[in-house]
């Protein structure tokens, strides 16, 4: 799957995009976040407060319980601020 990070999430994680296989046991966005938090201190810091984080799967806004499949494009970003 493709992971995309924007704004300060991108800065804290240290990359804007990465490709990973869907991790074992990860069935939804919430589980993916838990898995990511264990991947390093940048991830842990970036994903600490979920109240200021939003998610999109295949370019549609979703909640934490949205199911994931191999091949999905998952984007993680702060609430949008508009232009």
């Amino acid at each position: 799957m493709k992971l995309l990070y924007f704004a300060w999430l991108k800065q804290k994680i240290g990359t804007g995009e990465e490709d990973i296989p869907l991790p074992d046991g990860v069935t939804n966005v919430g589980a993916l976040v838990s898995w990511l938090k264990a991947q390093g201190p940048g991830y842990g810091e970036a994903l600490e407060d979920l109240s200021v984080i939003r998610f999109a799967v295949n370019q549609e806004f979703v909640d934490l319980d949205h199911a994931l499949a191999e091949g999905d494009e998952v984007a993680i970003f702060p609430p949008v601020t508009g232009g």
Partner: protein
Amino acid sequence: MIRVQRGNFDVGAEMAAMSGRNIGALSSFVGLVRGEDGDESVGAMTLEYYPGMTEKKLAEIEAEAHKRWALEDSLVIHRYGRLEPGEQIVLVVTASSHRQAAIESCAFLIDWLKTSAPFWKLEERKNGADWVKARESDDAAAEKWSVKK
């Protein structure tokens, strides 16, 4: 039409290019980078966007405007990247036979763009650069149109 682009735009040329069988009213809105916020002077801002999703969401809201109002034509241009104070950020133009449709749809689109479009803003101020937080007063402006964010 939707365009997300790095470069500037020419408001007069874009308005003149609007096409329709019977345009009686053209509304436009241009958003520019301000040099001051209250008493504080601000520097450049950098707009980040989500290529693909941003254009998709802009096209969806434009389609929604055409559903709500009888429009002859419409245009949304949104820039990304680093922009200095005074530079143009965003343009909305709506064309209709009647002025209420043009005015209301233009306000609808810009309220949505300014609050709910997938962009993130990094503002440069005296003490460094900060990512702008979503504002509640802006949410209220979008809610007035009952649009799902």
